């Protein structure tokens, strides 16, 4: 059967099958994004700390998680943690794994955002009697967030695509269903292309949103 004939006859079946993985994809993406946003901020603040030990430890974290494949990290969490008495479910392993990996990248986004704020802002806050933590919370971070929103949105797009790895630890998301469908029907190209299109349907709106935020950021600056 030709490509278009397959699409014509079986396209709807492929689409509805793959859409079954959409909730899991979104759940892992949102869960790991929240994880990365939270842990990434902590790592960034540790990297900016006056304490050398904290800076060294947080730098090591970033180097390790950015320097090793996300897939390896997922395997270590899912297959390795049971050896120390912890048994994460596939979903837990996926969210923790992508979250820890994403935190390393997010910490760099936070750090760049915080460092882009003029030092005078922190100094003014300190001279008003704020502690460095209060100054960060009420003065620096609110300003840095505006400049960070475009790269955070771009990072969210990357994270969404990375969810395609978590089939390897047993999560039944779009990629897992894609592989199952290919095995079932032996039709590779149409199914993989359809899976790609599904991801595009999610990433394109995010890209447009990121571009809009970037324009707003430039106008604000």
């Amino acid at each position, binding site marked *: 059967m030709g490509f278009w004939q397959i699409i014509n006859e079986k396209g709807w079946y492929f689409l509805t099958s793959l859409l079954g993985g959409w909730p899991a994809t979104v759940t892992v993406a949102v869960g790991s994004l929240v994880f990365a946003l939270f842990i990434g901020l902590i790592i960034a603040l540790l990297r900016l700390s006056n304490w050398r030990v904290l800076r060294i430890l947080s730098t090591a974290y970033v180097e390790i998680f950015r320097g090793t494949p996300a897939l390896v990290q997922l395997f270590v969490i899912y297959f390795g943690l049971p050896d120390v008495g912890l048994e994460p479910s596939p979903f837990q392993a996926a969210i923790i794994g992508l979250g820890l990996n994403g935190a390393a990248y997010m910490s760099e986004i936070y750090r760049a955002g915080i460092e882009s704020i*003029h030092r*005078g*802002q922190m*100094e*003014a*806050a*300190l*001279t*008003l*009697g*704020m*502690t*460095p*933590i*209060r100054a960060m919370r*009420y*003065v620096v971070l*609110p*300003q840095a967030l*505006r400049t960070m929103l475009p790269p955070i949105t771009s990072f969210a797009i990357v994270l969404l695509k990375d969810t395609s790895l978590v089939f390897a630890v047993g999560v039944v998301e779009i990629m897992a269903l894609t592989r199952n469908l290919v095995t079932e029907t032996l039709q590779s190209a149409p199914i993989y292309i359809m899976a790609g299109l599904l991801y595009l349907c999610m990433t394109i709106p995010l890209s447009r949103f990121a571009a809009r935020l970037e324009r707003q950021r430039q106008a604000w600056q």
Partner: protein
Amino acid sequence: MIKRSSETGDNQPLLKIDNLQKKFGDLVVLDGIDLEVHRGEKVSIIGPSGSGKTTLLRCINYLEKPSGGHIHIDGMLIGEKQINGKYVHLSDRELAEERRGIGFVFQRFNLFPHLTALGNVTIAPQKVLGLTRDEAERRGRDMLTKVGLGHKIDEYPERLSGGQQQRVAIARVLAMQPKLMLFDEATSALDPELIGEVLRVMRQLADEGSTMVIVTHEIQFAGEVSDRVIFMDHGKIVEQGPPRDVLFNPQQPRTREFLQHIQER
């Protein structure tokens, strides 16, 4: 035993600096500064660029950590404490508490661009002093009206002129009711036609009895407002005294040379 205070009594200076030193690497920026400022006194510090004037101000509120010497404000040691005879730096929280009593006005205003004028003035009273929002806003409106900007409370800094921004910065400091106000070349970043409005506010504060240490290039203003003028060069106090002496009858050749150079411009 933890010791924070030195002298007590009505005659003690509000600000007392003993043998203050500051180095950046091998570069000596402050070379043994001794200074006392009494309550209500207005002290102007003049001198060439690089003489250490700004660094002195920044050391007073510990934006820069001194390399040596000690600072007392109202009898309390600033930035450090004595434990069993040894000097130990304060924690961030302790330092923040000390800074509440010291107002600092920057050359480049350093307003918070994400807050309105009122927001800039109320954020510290709310988050640091614990005032309620209503109390902070009442105080904030009063301070902004005092500096002539009661009609600009809802404007963001980007919509204000340089002179207005600096006046908001002064109001922001006043809202914390500091014992001591430090001005670091408060008019140097302003267009000439905007300088007057800021100097007017500073003159008003001086007339009201604020204790002020003013680093400035405005020699005429220093002469009109100050009780004492200090000339600094190469990290040292070269000469100090009443304005009529230092500005019009300087004893030190370096002071004369500097003032002559200013007049020739």
